[in-house]
């Protein structure tokens, strides 16, 4: 194959660790043709990133690669660092997941960009500066000249990733390796970056190696796909074949485990390790789940606002107030799940904490079972905490590393039931563990001995030990792999059906929220912009922001992705410190009119939904 830009054959990567050798990549072979995009998909630990690092000669000190990786006919494996440096940047360049950590915080982005150009293309300082500005304009960074003089922390996540792309493409490399380029970004920004990549590929004619865990991202952007698991290739074919005619069981299971925006709402997600036909008992449908609770009101949140004081450094600094949650109201019935979605910084986590009385509300009321929580103090508040529990995003961080599982799960027992003796206490803990699918043997282990999915089960067991009425789940599956995510969602839904739990389910993944929620609330800059039941919200989104969000979600279906015209939402989230006047969304809204600038739209009923938009009736 003469026109292959990169040809990899029998690539192996091994690490020597304290626990013995780890074979991270086994006997991998693939090639990338000129102008082609190859997607490598896999869950964490599948060796997809190590493959890229091995090709670039960037493996950690204890790693070793053998096999062959030919770039334009030159062997890369085993190349000396100085020889490799000629290839890096100019021949192959790389974009990493987190743009903040791959940029030097002490230098302006323009300076960093210039260094690359001066080093590889031998340009003069002036020329490099001009070239840098041209590149910035190419990746559509507005006010390029001005941004060149900014430091990385002054740019938003999306902007930073654009800078990385500009830097990576500045020397016109023949191959761009993008390692999870959009994972750290919000969906709307992800859509922008993917759109940009698509466009640049055509313009610069670079081959792309796209590494991601997201099948949706692959579907719309790759020509061919390589599916990896445990360091091995499980499937290697054209994108259509992988999605429509998957040969391997693993690929099929992986595709099935992803909740999709366009699928029929099955109640149980098939999981990777248990094939769908064996999962057995059907769980009651969500509508049945709900009717069991007879729609009794559990939680009422009324005009809740949360403010933070932000002090800037400096002698005469004035404390400003940041409105994290602004006038949000909703109700939650017994056995109901309310999904809360929005981009990062929209106030969803602050809302959760305010509901749980972990941070004080600036105004408004939170009533649980008809009791206003705000004036409660000390013992009374403590007693109300029995009925509301929380599950956090990062399962490891939410477990005290110095406590055993028995201590962690049993801690609230000590708080509320200090009269229990050791055996009774153990019984309670064990039954909570069994309920979430863990064993009694795990009692004496420490959190670090568990995988992410197991650790999240421990977090759920801790929340369940008291039979609470309400569980607030703050991004409970965001940090987990697709297959584990499906298990945790199934577990939560099963528990809800079994005990009539009410859930507030916060997530940024719209498909997951669609799967688990009865009603969904969309938040933007601290305000609820749309509240509707699941069918109405996804079937007929009323607010322009909701539409943009749904539109930005990549669907794991190449056919749909190709035909779908992405209406990319422009720009970034405005700073919550200086929110726009009137409607918060007007700066990015394609339908904005003068009235949106002057008048803040109230939440009002349009059709089945509550929408905060002046033009909700006009927009079809």
């Amino acid at each position, binding site marked *: 194959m003469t026109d292959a830009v990169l040809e990899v054959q029998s690539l192996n990567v091994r690490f020597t660790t304290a626990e013995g050798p780890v074979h991270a990549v086994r006997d991998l072979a693939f090639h990338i043709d000129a102008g082609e995009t190859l997607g490598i998909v896999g869950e964490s630990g599948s060796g997809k990133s190590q493959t890229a690092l091995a090709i670039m000669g960037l493996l950690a000190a204890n790693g070793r690669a053998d096999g062959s990786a030919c770039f334009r006919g030159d062997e890369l494996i085993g190349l000396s660092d100085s020889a490799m440096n000629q290839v890096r940047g100019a021949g192959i360049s790389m974009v990493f997941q987190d743009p903040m950590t791959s940029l030097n915080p002490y230098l302006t982005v323009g300076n960093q960009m210039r260094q690359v150009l001066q080093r590889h293309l031998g340009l003069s300082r002036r020329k490099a500066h001009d070239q840098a500005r041209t590149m910035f304009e190419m990746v559509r960074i507005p006010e390029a000249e001005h941004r060149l003089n900014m430091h990385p922390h002054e740019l938003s996540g999306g902007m930073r990733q654009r800078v990385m792309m500009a830097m990576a493409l500045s020397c016109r490399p023949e191959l761009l390796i993008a390692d999870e380029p959009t994972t750290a970004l919000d969906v709307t920004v992800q859509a922008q970056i993917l759109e940009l990549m698509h466009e640049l590929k055509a313009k610069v004619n670079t081959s792309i190696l796209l590494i991601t865990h997201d099948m949706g991202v692959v579907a719309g952007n790759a020509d061919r796909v390589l599916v990896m698991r445990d360091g091995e290739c499980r499937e290697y074919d054209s994108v259509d074949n992988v999605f429509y005619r998957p040969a391997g069981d693993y690929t099929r299971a992986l595709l099935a485990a992803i909740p999709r925006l366009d699928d029929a709402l099955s109640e149980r997600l098939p999981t990777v390790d248990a094939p769908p036909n064996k999962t057995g008992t059907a769980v009651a449908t969500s509508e049945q789940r709900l009717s069991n609770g007879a729609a009794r009101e559990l939680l009422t949140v009324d005009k809740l606002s949360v403010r933070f004081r932000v002090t800037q450094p400096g002698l005469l600094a004035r404390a400003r107030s940041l409105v994290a949650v602004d006038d949000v109201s909703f109700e939650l019935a017994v056995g109901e799940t309310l999904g809360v979605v929005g981009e990062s910084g929209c106030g969803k986590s602050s809302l959760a904490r305010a509901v749980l009385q972990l941070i004080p509300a600036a105004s408004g009321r939170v009533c649980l079972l008809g009791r206003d929580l705000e004036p409660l103090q000390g013992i009374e508040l403590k007693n109300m905490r029995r009925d509301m529990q929380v599950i956090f995003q990062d399962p490891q961080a939410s477990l005290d590393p110095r406590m055993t599982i028995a201590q962690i799960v049993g801690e609230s027992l000590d708080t509320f039931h200090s009269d229990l003796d050791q055996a009774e206490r153990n019984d309670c803990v*064990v039954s909570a563990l069994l309920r979430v699918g863990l064993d009694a043997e795990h009692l*004496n282990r420490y959190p*670090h001995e568990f995988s992410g999915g197991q650790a999240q089960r421990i977090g759920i067991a801790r929340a369940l030990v008291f039979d609470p009425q309400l569980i607030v789940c703050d991004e409970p599956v965001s940090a987990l792999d697709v297959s584990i995510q499906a298990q945790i969602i199934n577990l939560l839904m099963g528990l809800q059906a079994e005990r009539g739990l009410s859930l507030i389910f916060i997530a940024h993944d719209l498909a997951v929220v669609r799967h688990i929620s009865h009603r969904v609330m969309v938040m933007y800059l601290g305000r609820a912009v749309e509240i509707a039941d699941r069918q109405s919200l996804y079937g007929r989104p009323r607010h322009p922001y909701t539409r943009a969000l749904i539109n930005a979600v990549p669907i794991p279906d190449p056919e749909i992705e190709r035909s779908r015209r992405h209406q990319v939402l422009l720009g970034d989230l405005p700073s919550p410190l200086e929110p726009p006047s009137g409607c918060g969304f007007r700066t990015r809204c394609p339908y904005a009119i003068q009235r949106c600038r002057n008048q803040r739209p109230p939440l009002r009923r349009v059709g089945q939904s509550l929408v905060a938009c002046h033009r909700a009736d006009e927009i079809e």
Partner: protein
Amino acid sequence: MNAAAQTFNIRGRSLWLDVWETLKKNRAAFAATLVLAAMAVSVMVAPMLSPYAFDATDFNQISLGPSLPTMHLFGTDALGRDVFVRTMYGGRISLMVGLVATAVSLIIGVAWGAIAGFIGGRTDHVMMRIVDVLYAMPFMFFVILLMVFFGRSIVLIFVAIGAINWLDMARIVRGQTLSLKAEQFVEAARAGGVSNFNIVRRHIVPNLLGVVAVYVTLTIPQVILVESFLSFLGLGVQEPMTSWGALVNEGAQEMETAPWLLIFPAAFLAATLFCLNFIGDGLRDALDPRDRSK
């Protein structure tokens, strides 16, 4: 077997038991613990086994080298006093200063830092400014003033050293507490209705232990050295009572004629500092469950 019955077979794990088990596996730390324990026991017991008293002068046996037949194991000094017994007595003072002053700084420093960090806000500001003010006082001046006002006494040395050392501890602990306070498991505990006192006790302090343990093992040698320094200046313990620092000082003056006066106390002092450093390292690893390899 049902689940409940099964649990009885599972022995509970206690933090300190686990720490001890892990420490035993770390050979350097374990050996250091044994050596230090042996030294502590010998400074208490050994002087009783020797026929000489620590302050008994014998002008017939001035500046003798170490010898077994005379029972002057470490030799004698310029006044004919037995160096072995004096080294043991000096060890009592030095180890005691190390322990007591460090305990003082540990208790005040951890409590002060954890409270300031956990409560935060204005309380934090006031508490840390107090620390800053105390920091600004020159230590030597402070000690000399104390000595002048209250006369020289060993208790004053404990107080003076302890009163200065807790400042560092408080700062370190406060910084750690601030970052721990933001951890999700602390938030989870608050959501679970755990009281502030219990959060500090169960979550904050145990997670501070690693840093504190290391700092303590650095503080003890430091305190012993400060006491030596004070003794060297003549502000420390009073003759005929002695400490390792005072002995090293005397020995250094006669280094050329009677090297044993310097070698033995200095060896004990150095061995103690070595041991403490190894133990500190071992403790830090042992206190962190994440580092315990299976």
